[in-house]
């Protein structure tokens, strides 16, 4: 998909930049318009409490979507043959179950954190092995791994909620400095670190090169396979991080984490429109996650039935993708 853009010549690139600017400005405008609309119609919407809470509630989805975004950046934007990690949500479910089970077994937070991280990494490693070493399509490889992870979660929890509560988990769920929930702080810190890492370090730039121009990256001597494998490990690690936040937020494991998957995919794909070159970026994904969070929250405050939410999300991706594909067709 992105190759079309790169093939475009100089003046076309100008045209494209203009179009991309319009789209990006359009999507940012849409974001602002939604915020303004909700603050005008639902007075509580713009309150500090509500605002920071929405950010906190978006943390888990956003962090999973960060992992997905890293995979897409490294694997290329084509959803079928490029990078995608369908196992993130199931991985989160498994990791959350591991954490809660360890706490219930009387282990401390430190052990639980380490084991959870190891679990997330192991799932990521399975993906990396299947995609990089064996060469299975990412869509397919991560689908298979997803099934295994979901099965292991069921074995561990027998489809029940394992509750877990420790001072550490409660601290995560508390309100932190400046009256902002700790979950929101964690999200912002993770986002800033990841943005710096992906957009501003040599490693990050090389990762983008691997995703966008695989052959060129290979010709330049980059260890392409290692980069792609690393993205799945990162994604696994983020699933584990999301799991710890989820255990804190829900005071235990949850049985419905697999349902997060499509939301994560939508968030990562929607994020593309918030970037200048219409490519996946961490910042774009953050904005998309917040956008979806505010949309759901505004609907709730306006007493609009939550039944509309998934339809609006679906219409949103279609709108965005249709706009980008029309833009891209114009250039070529």
């Amino acid at each position, binding site marked *: 998909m992105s190759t079309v853009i790169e093939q475009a010549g100089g003046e076309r690139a100008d045209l494209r930049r203009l179009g991309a600017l319009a789209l990006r400005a359009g999507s940012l405008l849409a974001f602002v318009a939604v915020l303004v609309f909700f603050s005008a119609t639902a007075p509580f919407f713009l309150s500090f409490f509500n605002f920071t809470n929405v950010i906190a509630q978006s943390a888990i989805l956003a962090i999973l979507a960060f992992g997905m975004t890293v995979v897409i950046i490294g694997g290329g934007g084509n959803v079928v043959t490029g990078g995608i990690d369908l196992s993130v949500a199931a991985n989160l479910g498994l990791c959350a179950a591991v954490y809660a089970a360890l706490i219930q077994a009387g282990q401390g937070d430190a052990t639980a954190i380490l084991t959870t991280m190891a679990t997330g990494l192991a799932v990521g490693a399975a993906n990396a092995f299947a995609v990089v070493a064996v060469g299975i399509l990412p869509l397919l490889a991560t689908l298979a791994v997803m099934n*295994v992870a979901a099965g292991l979660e069921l*074995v561990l929890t027998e489809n029940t909620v394992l509750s877990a509560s420790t001072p550490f988990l409660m601290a995560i769920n508390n309100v932190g400095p400046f009256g902002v929930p700790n979950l929101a702080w964690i999200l912002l810190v993770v986002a800033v670190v990841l943005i710096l890492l992906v957009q501003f370090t040599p490693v990050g730039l090389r990762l983008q090169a691997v995703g966008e121009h695989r052959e060129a990256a290979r010709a330049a001597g980059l260890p392409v396979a290692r980069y792609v494998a690393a993205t799945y490990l990162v994604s696994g690690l983020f699933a584990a991080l999301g799991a710890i936040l989820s255990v804190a937020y829900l005071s235990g494991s949850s049985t419905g984490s697999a349902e997060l998957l499509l939301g994560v995919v939508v968030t990562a794909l929607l994020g593309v429109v918030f970037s200048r070159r219409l490519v996946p970026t961490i910042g774009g994904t953050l904005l998309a996650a917040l956008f979806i969070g505010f949309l759901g929250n505004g609907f709730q405050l306006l007493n609009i039935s939550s039944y509309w939410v998934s339809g609006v999300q679906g219409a949103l*991706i*279609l709108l965005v993708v249709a706009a980008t594909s029309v833009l891209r067709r114009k250039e070529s």
Partner: protein
Amino acid sequence: MAQATLPTAQHRRRLPDLVFQMGLPLALLLVVLFFAWSSPAFLVPSNLESVLVNNFTLLAIVSIAMTLAVASGGIDLSVGTALDFASLLFVSLIAAGQPFGIALLAGLLGGLAAGLFNAFLIVALGITPFLATLGTLFIGRSVQQLTTGGGIPIYLSKAKVPEAATFLAHGDILGIATPLWVVASLIILFTVLLRATPFGRRVTAIGVQPAVAWYSGLPVRRDLVLVYLLSALVAAVAGLMLSATVNAYVPSSGNAFLLNAIGATFIGTTLDRRGRPNVPGTVLGVLLLAVVANGLLLIGWNFYWQQVGTGVLIFLVLVASFASRRWRKAA
């Protein structure tokens, strides 16, 4: 020179080819033998029929729909949506006292609506099939929640279930269960359609080389519209079968088939020498999943371990098939 090296290259390719193509049937055979050996209740006619009727039929139908989309180079994530729409219309109309034929037709049209929407997004707006059908899935979920008061199932009382529906789900013709006749006809129909008709060959061409198909003057847009309509229509048949079996419409129950259908379709590609999606391969893939689910239950694995077992098995089949694909390329 190319001609001179060709025979040896072919010769060397033969073994990996064979491993690649025979992987899936072999896996199925091994699994059947294993369960036959470990559980006396497995290789019994009544159990085999139960595998086919309960574990195989619906997933096979949905997977045929998926195979069509994948063969055209796309994917249809909204097969579950078409299934649900069909089920919703069928069951609501029966519940409202309409005759079976009208409800059946409405159900098929409901499924087609999802396909029409996909076709519009993919062909008219140029959205990639993955994203287009993902959008349809999301919108379809909202539509179902809005029309059912947030996802309340519709149940048909025994008195309301038409005889034809009972026959469709539980009847038999010549001693063979009706659902098996339905699925067998669909398998034959779509195997022939994809393999032996101009339309099928065009679809395969579009899937393999979309640009070449376009420049060769193939009616790519028209064919893609047909592919997504057909995919939705086939999924709608699964929706009708499901409603007739459980005498109910349960919102968003179609999505349960989605991931297994994708898995079966791609596992099935190994049956083709060139690794292309094909209906017989898909059917073998579904059969493998069905046999494993049934067999693990019989040897006493609980539902949770079954999930792990099935997942690991699919993973291993994929690893074996893609590894041999690489081996073949290297040879």
